């Protein structure tokens, strides 16, 4: 994997929210590299900071939240140092987003073509109206939709069609990095698969990299190259899919894998003991230690550093500290 270039390099990202009860670090010192053309899956329990990270990478954190520190490099630009206008232009162009389209991600009062053309127009490509319309129709065709969809309103589309439209819009500007935030969560299994295949095909064509956020470990195993496991605002482990499933390093990853249903244990649901911690009352030391079966004395005192193993995997756990 090292023969490929780095598409996105995130360094020590910290996102802080101000609440009535104090400050919380929803993303707390995250660093990783995303390779060109790579598919990285981001997993974790609800409220672990996945979606915050997605917004932070788009630089779209709104008050009372704030990107406290960190860098996010795409090519030679640190997104957090761009001025307001440049960052706006970078969105969709350098770093794009595919949202949960089945929900409410399309503007209800505008036709689909306008929603795509507005994106193109605001990126000042100097195209004529006809060229933009043509580009919008191409984008729809690229996700397997008919050109007629361009003249429709969102409420006239099915959930799967809406998701495809969202993908078409997110990919219309051919971004280098795509963040897909649970793009298939509200769809049925068949549609899910079709949409994922479409996204994968388009991504291959444009050689973009993708960060996919999901709850669905099964989907993850089929689709992504590497898995990043997030816990309480930190990355517990980043490994290839194969390594993560066959030889997980972090105890949290091990537990996550063990909760997956297996046919031989039909009818038995395994869950991780304990609850995801509240950001307001994070335990001292490693945030996972109260639930960790392999917790040691040091885990209650000291936060483990993120280390890179000889195979190039990232892990933050005292079991592997030198």
């Amino acid at each position, binding site marked *: 994997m090292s023969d490929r270039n780095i598409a996105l390099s995130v360094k020590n990202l910290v996102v802080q929210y101000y609440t009535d009860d104090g400050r919380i670090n929803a993303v707390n010192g995250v660093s990783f590299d995303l390779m060109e053309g790579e598919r990285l899956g981001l997993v974790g329990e609800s409220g672990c900071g996945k979606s915050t990270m997605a917004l932070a990478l788009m630089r779209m954190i709104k008050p009372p939240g704030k990107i406290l520190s960190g860098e996010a490099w795409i090519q030679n630009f640190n997104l957090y140092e761009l001025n307001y206008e440049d960052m706006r232009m970078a969105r969709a162009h350098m770093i794009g987003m595919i949202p949960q389209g089945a929900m409410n991600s399309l503007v209800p009062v505008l036709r689909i073509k306008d929603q795509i053309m507005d994106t193109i127009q605001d990126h000042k490509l100097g195209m004529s109206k006809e060229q933009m319309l043509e580009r919008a129709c191409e984008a729809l065709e690229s996700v397997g939709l008919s050109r007629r969809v361009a003249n429709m309103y969102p409420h006239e589309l099915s959930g799967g069609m809406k998701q495809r439209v969202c993908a078409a819009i997110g990919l219309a500007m051919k971004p280098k990095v795509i963040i897909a935030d649970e793009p298939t969560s509200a769809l049925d299994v068949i549609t899910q698969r079709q949409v994922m295949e479409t996204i994968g095909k388009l991504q291959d064509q444009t050689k973009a990299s993708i960060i996919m956020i999901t709850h669905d470990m099964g989907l993850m195993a089929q689709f992504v190259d590497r898995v990043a496991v997030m816990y309480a605002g930190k990355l517990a482990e980043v490994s290839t899919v194969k390594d993560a499933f066959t030889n997980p390093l972090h105890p949290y990853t091990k537990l996550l894998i063990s909760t997956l249903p297996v046919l031989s244990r039909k009818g038995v649901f395994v869950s991780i003991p*304990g609850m995801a911690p*509240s950001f307001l*009352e994070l335990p001292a030391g490693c945030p996972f230690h109260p639930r960790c079966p392999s917790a040691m004395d040091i885990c209650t005192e000291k936060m483990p550093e993120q280390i890179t193993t000889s195979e190039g995997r990232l892990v933050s756990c005292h079991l592997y500290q030198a």
Partner: protein
Amino acid sequence: MTVQTSTVQPSTRPKRTRLRRALLYFKRNPSLGIGLFMLIALIVFTIVGLFQVDPLKGYAGAVRGSQPPSAKYIFGTDGQGRDLYTVAVLGTWVTLEIGFIAAAVGMGLGVFLGFSSAYFGGWVDNILRWVIDVFMTIPGFLILIVLAALLGGRVSTEGTGLIIALFLWAGPARVVRSQVLSLRERQFVQMAKLNGLNDMRIIFEELFPNLLPFLGAQLISAVMGAVYSSAGLSILGLGNLREPQLGTMLYFMTTQGAVVRGMWWWVAVPVVLLCWLFVMLYLISSGMDELANPRLRRRQ
């Protein structure tokens, strides 16, 4: 292994902190704070006033008419010889009294019908929903004019309140109905049902406390509607023209040309006091709404 949330027991805290917390809350919900402050100011004004005024001077011909404010008549007197200070002290509360009678009766009716509609469902709900819709669409004020015209100036304060109540119940009924419907789906009511509590007990023990702040906001806005209606009827000459009410003041003030005669004090007393009432009620009502609906609070 669950992470315990450590809440500080409120009872162990000194009282001053609670006061400070209340003040902090008013800072976040200024409508309620300012509204209550206006109410307190009005109460103080009335209490001080009650020691100073002679109720009889609030009637026509009691004092020398058309006197500008002076040491003797600090708010002046109107063209018909009422002491405006007396009217201000007493009339404000008569006006509010009409409002409260109307709102209390209307709310009572509305809450009862809204509860019934939501709770029993079926044909009761179907009929009541149509009746509510009809009453919501009819501008009650127009019917009030008809009724009041028929009764002439013979309506007492309580009577005016009751008539206005006839057209105040539909709004609260609709709101209570939808609130009960949504509350009924919540877990604690489902739990109570599973625990074998009967319907009436669920209504009174589980639903009612949850609706209280909400009903408070509704009540105050009903008072506002009633004060509006009673002042409106008075302007048309359909109120009680003898009692020293603020609406009555407006009627005489406009029909007897207080403005063209340059008697600014006659204009100012009812207008300022009514504005005070309306703004006060509006602020309290929207403040209580905010108190009742935490989602609104989160948004801001």
